[in-house]
């Protein structure tokens, strides 16, 4: 039985506040002032989180699998 969890971080120095993530996954991201942040830093696996991270023009969203440390986004 796997109880995989993901950790989401937004690099505030890189984020330009385009709110693509907020519009794409409104339950997962919110604007705090001029930059975005995750609503919850640790979440159950959720494709919407990856979709938002992949759509970030700045690649400011990092999604890591807790436990394995595997980077799920950004790619490469």
């Amino acid at each position, binding site marked *: 039985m796997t109880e995989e969890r993901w950790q989401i971080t937004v690099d505030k120095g890189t984020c330009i506040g385009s709110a693509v993530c907020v*519009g794409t996954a409104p339950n997962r991201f919110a604007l705090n002032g001029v930059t975005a942040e995750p609503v919850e830093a640790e979440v159950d696996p959720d494709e919407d989180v990856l979709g938002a991270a992949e759509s970030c*023009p700045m*690649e400011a969203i990092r999604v890591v699998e807790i436990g394995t440390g595997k980077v799920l986004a950004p790619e490469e």
Partner: protein
Amino acid sequence: MTATSQEPATPYPFGVADGLSVHPKLAEVRQNTPVLRIAMPYGGDAWLATRYDDVKMVLADPRFSMAATVGKDVPRPMPNIQTESSILTMDPPEHGRLRKLVAKAFTVRRVEALRPRIQQIIDDLTGTMLTSGSPADLAASVNWPLPITVICEMLGVPLADQGTFRQWTDGLLAIDGDGSKSQVNRRHLQDYLAGLIATHRAEPQDDLLSELITARDVDDRLTEAELVNFSIALLLAGHETTANQTGNFVFLLLANRGLWESLVADPSLVPAAVEELLRFVPLGGGAGFVRIAKEDVVLASGHPIAAGDAIMADMSSANRDESVYPHADQVDFHRPENQHVAFGHGAHHCLGAPLARMEMQMAVTSLVTRVPTLRLAVPAEEVEWKTDRLIRGVRSLPVAW
């Protein structure tokens, strides 16, 4: 649409887009009735959000739907009802399904890798113009061929076809009597892209069209109609906006010589200047797309919007909001904060923004460093503007040096 206000609606647009000026009524509205009831030419009344915080909210809040407008008699500037869904009219999560297929190609990191090639294109175009001699039409020499060449190479569209597809993309953006011109040109583009998709399918290349075909054929992540319409959107948005806006920017710089000279004296100001010009120059002729409230929503300013109501967000008004930008009606390359909404906000924030930004920065940098004596070849008031298009731009930009 349901009217939730007893006030009579104000006819909108307020007037014909005149050059690069913002209609004076907009400042008055922003001050006195920031969420105004407007009567659109077709489809009835809508709300118009004019303040920065409200505009951002309308653009990003998923309770305001674009998809709910497709095929509906919603308030709109043109007679024909938009019946075809495209990435521009999709809501999350459908929108994200398409966007993420190409989002990686347009990140700042990936676009930065194109810099040497884009510089070469700019150098070639500028060199040809200089060799042909003064005066010249900068729009035809540099502003249009630059983004067209770049998006053609990225997508895998033959540059040699630009003579035909440019007529169609231009025609698609036309505002004419019954909207038939736009529809006819959309069909031309659909046939053209369907043909290109067929050749790419037979012989895949290292380009975005081939990637999208793989996403369709191998992974079934979009339909054939979505593939065609998405390709049109990329081709069109990939050059019409950047080409027109580059012309608008250079016109404004040359018509206000002090601004041009400040960049000649210090080209390192160009990135900040481009951000300020993005804020200041209204690209659209008016507020852009209409959205429908899926439920009752209270805007940032406290104004209630009822479920089912139509609302438009005026981005150029938000960019002139004095509560956010002191002396908003002045161009200032030294603003400490400049988070404008020229590229939109939220899920539909311009996919190509990093590319557009870089192309415009590089084009302006090249001109101020290579042709510092550039000037308008005719008086500024004689430069001709397009008036029957959804976005603003010069018909030609006569320059001398």
